[in-house]
């Protein structure tokens, strides 16, 4: 298949990494660009301004991978926020469904089902980001306590929500009568 050259194009990220000072913002941008993330330096809107008048716009869906990279590279930042007003907080609540031998935990668009007796993950479902089918293959058949944490190996908000479902499943499992 022919190699396609990517043309320079506009960017619509939907999220901002906020910094205390300009130096940190420029360092954060360099770290992210070096890792091939599509980012750009922008002026944050006044309601989101934390310390300085420079922020890095990111694809909000990539928030977990970007925050992990900044931490790994010791690149200080204050927080990540969606650009649109009214949606500043990640969804925190989960829903639990009892299927008899199994429990399903739902966090936003992600669901995880595990066997009550063995604590083995029997399914994950939902989501739409490309790390989710990979995590599905990596997690199924493993005990809740031994499965990889999506927040550590995934890159997207879908993975972060799957991690929330895993965390709640661990709470339920460890608070129950597991062997």
């Amino acid at each position, binding site marked *: 298949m022919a190699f396609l050259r990517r043309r320079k*194009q506009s960017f619509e990220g939907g999220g901002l990494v906020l910094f205390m000072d300009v130096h940190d913002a420029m360092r954060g941008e360099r770290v992210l660009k070096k890792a091939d993330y599509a980012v750009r330096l922008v002026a944050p809107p006044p309601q989101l301004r934390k310390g300085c008048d420079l922020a890095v716009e990111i*694809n909000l*869906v990539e928030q977990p991978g970007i925050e992990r990279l900044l931490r790994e590279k010791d690149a200080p930042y204050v927080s990540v926020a969606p650009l649109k007003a009214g*949606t500043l907080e990640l969804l925190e609540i989960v829903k639990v469904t009892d299927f008899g031998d199994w429990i399903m935990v739902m966090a936003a*668009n992600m669901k995880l089902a595990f066997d009550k007796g063995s604590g083995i993950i029997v399914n994950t479902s939902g989501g739409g980001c490309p790390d989710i*089918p990979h995590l599905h293959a990596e997690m199924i058949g493993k005990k809740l306590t031994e499965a990889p944490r999506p927040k550590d190996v995934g890159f997207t*908000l879908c993975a972060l929500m799957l991690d929330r479902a895993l965390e709640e499943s661990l709470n339920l499992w460890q608070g129950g009568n597991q062997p």
Partner: protein
Amino acid sequence: MMLIVGTVPVKGLPLTMGKVGSEGEFLVVDGHPVPCTQGTGAMIRAALVTTEYLKLEPPRVLVAGDTGQGNGSREIYEYLIQKVAELSPEVLALHYCLPDMALTRRLCESVRGCAKRPMMIADAGSMYAAKAAGLALEFDIFTPDATEMAFLADPEATHPAYIARHLFDTDISQTPKLVAAAYEHKDAAKLLLVKGATDYVVRSGDILATIAEPDVPALEAIGGTGDTITGLVSAFAYAGLEPQEAAIIAARSNRIAGEFAEATPATRVSQVISQFPIVYKEHLCQWSGVCYIEGGSND
């Protein structure tokens, strides 16, 4: 031609396009094996099983390996932006990709340049990007689940992880309210198939049908059973059914396949998909007029 587009969790798989076939547990595209698991793989397999039953040309697929960093997603978008007019698919079904608003906008511009506009279907990350970019009306069919319906109803959200709590708290019976909100903000495709305890088929804000039987609650827990519905809708639309009819038959087929598979939360999606030919043999003639003749072909 029906073209299914999406990433697959195969590290190192290059951008690959071709007719899809199957070998045992795997799909095969241009000699590359692709697992038939949650995501684009399950969607493709469901569509392939359906086209095989209907004796139609198998889907062509455009896939690339991507485990979350987005490189395969971007390759797919860039290729499609350049080639969609030349490929000129009748049905274009977009699935698991890293949501990218700017690339989706460029893709929609390219689609407008097609001599004949394809039927545009989106689910998963492709649907997230279309809604977040304000491009939902460019699409003919979205297939959200209940939480994704809340996402479409929240004009501020660019991903389901950021929807307003009161919208996440609603149950499936509140779907009509969410549907109305999504259409009010122009954040819904022309037709919605909302997947849940009750499936809703909605066109331009009007609820055309609800499907609640058979009730197989475990389907919600099985990774890939939403993807199969999108594959079925795409295949039935490609077969010439009206979008709403394709959606209704897809929803019914998925439920009955789940019942035939005696689905539990531990069931694999491949076990559900394997039931589709049996479901079609028993029901498709009555539902659609597409009938199976023993020992012969379908008509």
